[in-house]
Each structure stands twice: as structure tokens, then as C-alpha cells.
């Protein structure tokens, strides 16, 4: 669907609070913007974002038309075990983009 940049520290200590940064390329077309002929560009936004740590749901967000294009999100998790972080963005057509990143806990 789109290109995403995921920033997760690869090696951390157990119990560390780690910052996760995610950036995805998406137009976030609001549906309120007219084209040169006065017709509105159809709305096309990412509606939700979720992050799971192994299978545990650790973060989610709702996105709205006022969010900028190429939305950037940053949040923190407590690194308890070596595992996989799964990030998913869902758009208006219910299509989901999934990206994963490994996190290694010492």
C-alpha cells in the first residue's frame, strides 16, 4: 500500500522504556479540498493505527481528516521480552498495511 519508516531500537535492557517512531507515506486527503474544476477530491485517509508487542495490544490511535499527510506517530513501550512489534495502519477502504520490527531485550 504505502511506504513506512519504523524506528525501533534493536537492543535494549529489560524494563527499559523505549521510544517507537513510525512514519508512513499517505496523502490523507480530507475530502474537503476542491480540484481546479470545483469538484472535491474524494476522501482518502488512514483511520486507525495499532501496535502489538508479540500478541499484546500496546498502543492504538484513531486518525482524522485534520491529521497531516504522511502521518508520524511516536509512543513508548516498556521492553519486557525479546519479541516482535507489529504495526498496522487501516485506511478508509479497510485495507491494512502491516509492518514488523524485532526488539531484542538483554
Amino acid at each position, binding site marked *: 500500500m504505502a*511506504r513506512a*519508516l*519504523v*524506528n525501533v531500537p534493536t537492543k535494549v535492557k529489560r524494563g527499559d522504556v523505549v521510544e517507537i*517512531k513510525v*512514519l508512513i*507515506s499517505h496523502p*490523507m486527503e480530507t475530502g474537503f479540498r476542491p480540484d481546479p474544476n470545483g469538484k472535491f477530491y474524494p476522501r482518502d485517509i488512514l483511520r486507525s493505527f495499532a501496535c502489538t508487542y508479540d500478541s499484546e495490544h500496546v498502543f492504538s490511535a484513531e486518525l482524522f481528516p485534520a491529521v*497531516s*499527510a*504522511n502521518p*508520524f506517530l511516536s509512543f513508548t513501550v516498556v521492553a519486557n521480552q525479546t519479541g516482535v512489534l507489529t504495526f498496522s495502519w487501516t485506511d478508509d477502504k479497510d485495507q491494512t498495511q502491516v509492518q514488523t520490527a524485532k526488539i531484542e531485550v538483554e
Partner: protein
Amino acid sequence: MKSAAPVGALALIAALGAFAALAQIAEADRKSGSAFMSAETQQMQRDDGTNPGMLSALDGESLWKTKTGGAAKSCADCHGEAQTSMKGVAARYPAFNEASQTPIDLQGRINQCRQDQQKDTPLAPESRDLLALSAFIGLQSRGMPTAPPDDQRLTPFRERGRALWSQRMGQLNFSCAQCHEDNWGKHLGSAPIPQAHANAYPIYRLEWQGMGSLQRRLRNCMSGMRALAFPYGAQEFIELELYLAQRARGMPVETPGVRP
């Protein structure tokens, strides 16, 4: 005594000339556009994980390896790894183009390759793919000094660019130099006026919520001056780009830059 007036006038003209020359920003005072940004925006540009321009550069990387056109060749088929072959290339553009005997900028050069080598239609100005390729090629020169070529054949074009730079235009009757040489560091509305060094293009501009080339930025300034902007690819723009490259000689390339 009768001759005193013309001599005085001449002296005045000479003094004005000297003043105009002084108005040019001294080398030690030169600052990149990023120096005028908020700390948050600077941080956004510095970190490749948060710089939205990197999304475009990564698109460019995959385009670099994509075979296209009648010749079914990719950029990589001729140029190999961009990390080595394109190192420092963007810092040298615009350069002189032997075929047309005119200067050409990086985007023009990409399209020329596309037409002549790949046998494909040129990419439209400001198209996603053209910006992505130029961001990817520009990225290979990041941190290197802007190094406009010492090509005598470029001199007349560069001089025309210099003249355009101080040419008043539009209903507001402004020249580029009036803001960016004489009044940099002050504010236009709430926005600080930078020195207009073209060392980070193509840029991700937060206001645009997308990537844009130097020519888009120049058109933007021209409409701000209530002037009729030159069309994309106009000779005037290439000449201005040449002068701007000369003006930013030695300043490190920041591509892909983030600007507010």
C-alpha cells in the same frame, strides 16, 4: 566648478555600486535555511526515521533499480550502485549540457537520461517519480559541499541568473535580493526570512505536505511577489539555479531537507 556635479553624480553611482556589492552576504555570515527553523523541525530533518523526505528518497531508490522504457533499462544498469556512482553529483548541478549547449539542472538531466538511454517519456515536472529520483540522487551528496563547476561556458548564464536575482518584478515590485540579501533574519508576517540557499532540494515542505523542487519554491516566491511565474523548466529558472549554486558554494548539501 561646472564639472563638479557630474563628477559628484559619478561618485554617488560608484558609492551605490559599492553598497550593492556590500549587500551580498559575506561567506562567514552564510546560513542554511535550516538554521532559521524551529528546533523541532531541525530535529525532524536530522533524523532519517522522522524526515518525511526519506520516504521519497526510498521511493527513488526503488525507481533507480526499476527497468523502464523501450530500452528496458534501469538507472542502475548503466550507473550501478548510486551510493558510489552518484556521490557528489547533485552538488555539482546545474552543469553544462554538451548536446544542447545550454546549462541543465539535475531534474533535466534525469529526464534526458530517461529519453535518450531508457527510451521513455520524460517525467512531468513535480511528479512523484521525478522528485523521488532527484531526492535519492541528492541524498548521495548529503554532507558534501555544494560545488558548482568552474565551467567558463556557464558564466554568461550564471551572470543572467545574477541579474534576475536583483531584478524587481511583480506588482509588489520586489527582487529576490531585497528579501534574501538585505533583510534576511527579519520576519515576513510570522515567517523568518532565510538567505535562500538552495542546498537542500528537493525539500519536504510542511506547508505543502509533500515534496517539491527548487523551481516550485521559486514559483512560490514569484507568486508571493505578485509576478507571473516562469513555467517549469524555463531557461530563467536554470539561470537562477546556477547563480544560487554559486552563491551557496561550499555549503553542505542537506537533501532531502525539511522546511516549514
